[in-house]
């Protein structure tokens, strides 16, 4: 049998064919599991008119002292038409996301979605379910003019599946088959985004193992969902982790 591998040599190679107008899902939550290297490569690759699906558009340099690649950079680079996310502004109104000023000025569109709904819409897309009902956002301005239905005396809001063209992921460990394993809170949106996507690209933190290097019981995301894997090189070439957030005790 010939040796097949999903490992590719560079981040540029991984994102080479991302087309203008694509819907891109970006994994990660508050820094953990963020595909920083693939995001940077996508900024350099330059695909335009993108719809980005992400939890938050990125905190900018204020939150952790340094700015790592985030969706805000794609916005600043003029590549983004619309963002579908759970935050168009920071939790604290005094923190200003780079994205917010573009949004407020009408230079980019956004769809604000409750976080559980956001991930369930991708789970549905990855599970062959076209729509579902959820109690989240019922009675809020997000539900105005939209279809609701009452089940067992409670009102639910109709939400549609959110299919993805390309998912950018970060994982801890991979094998050549594309099986992935995440570490701690790095998992977050990553497996679900891959399952919703036609093409899933993963940056990984350890050397890529031969197929079988991750026991079948220990695979978090089966390789059938993952198309390309890139090993993150050492710093400064590779981007690793955000510094710890300052904590008030």
């Amino acid at each position, binding site marked *: 049998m010939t040796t097949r591998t999903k490992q590719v040599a560079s981040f540029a190679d991984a994102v080479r064919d991302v087309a203008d107008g694509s819907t891109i899902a970006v994994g990660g*939550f*508050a*820094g*953990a*599991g963020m595909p920083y290297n693939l995001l940077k490569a996508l900024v350099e690759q330059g695909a335009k008119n993108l719809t980005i699906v992400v939890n*938050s558009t990125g905190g900018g340099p204020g*939150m952790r002292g340094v700015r790592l690649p985030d969706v805000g950079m794609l916005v600043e680079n003029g590549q983004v038409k619309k963002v579908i996310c*759970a*935050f*168009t*502004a*920071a*939790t*604290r*109104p005094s923190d200003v996301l780079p994205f*917010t000023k573009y*949004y*407020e000025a009408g230079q980019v569109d*956004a769809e*604000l*979605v*409750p*976080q*559980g*709904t956001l*991930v*369930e819409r*991708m*789970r549905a897309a990855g599970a062959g379910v076209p729509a579902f009902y*959820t*109690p*989240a*956002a*019922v*009675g*809020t*301005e*997000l539900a105005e003019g939209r279809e609701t239905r009452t089940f067992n005396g409670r009102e639910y809001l109709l939400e549609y599946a959110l299919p993805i063209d390309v998912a950018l992921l970060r994982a*801890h460990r991979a094998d050549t088959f594309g099986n992935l394993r*995440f*570490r*701690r*809170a*790095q*998992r*977050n*949106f*990553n*497996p*679900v985004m891959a399952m919703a996507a036609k093409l899933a690209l993963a940056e990984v933190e350890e050397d890529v193992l031969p197929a079988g290097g991750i026991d079948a019981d220990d695979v*978090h995301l089966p390789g059938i969902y993952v198309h390309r894997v890139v090993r993150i090189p050492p710093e400064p070439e590779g981007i*690793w*982790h*955000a510094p*710890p*957030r300052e*904590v008030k*005790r």
Partner: protein
Amino acid sequence: MSEGRGLSRQQMADRLALEFQDGWIVNLGVGMPTLCSNTDIGERQVIYHSENGVIGYGPLAEPGHEDPHLINAGGQNVTLRPGAAIVHHADSFAIIRSGRIDVTVLGAYEVACNGDFANWKVKGAKGGGIGGAMDLAACAKNVFVVLEHNTRDGAPRLLRECALPVTARGVATLVVTNLGLFRPKGEAFEMLEIAPGYSVEEVRAATGCPLIAADTVPPVRMAG
């Protein structure tokens, strides 16, 4: 706030944490709610759930011992308690929507006596930050709200009706402010406990809706 009057941020969080029952699954919002995990609740043990899929996290990591992969919903580096488990985001919100969270503690800009509250959008903004708050507020068994009693300009935050867009309707079960502990009762807030240094009349004047208070309101119960 003048010296010795009212509750500190930690005392507000402490008062809500005293309501946590043994075995509860607890989800703490970003900001003041995270302070609840500092409270000494004696022999009772709760399981902290974080929306990013961490079930059973423990205290904040010591400086220099942070694990970059291990954070709570506020992005703080935390530790795991024995018995902790990790799930992905869809499963984390399955836990939330299926009603397994006994209590969520959330910050807010406004809360109304009918149980509505608002915490995702400020006045005049085009967008906002919802995060997991709408899912949590709609589905947790108890929704505790923590907020300052008044804005910096002195306007009340406890209202008959929220002026800001709401996060969920009719869900708040307990409210703590720097002035005391309150329960939404539909047409009014019931004042359960009062903060040191305040009179009921002062609290009533600082509140934007009717306040039900007994002749003698007990002081806010303190932790420890």
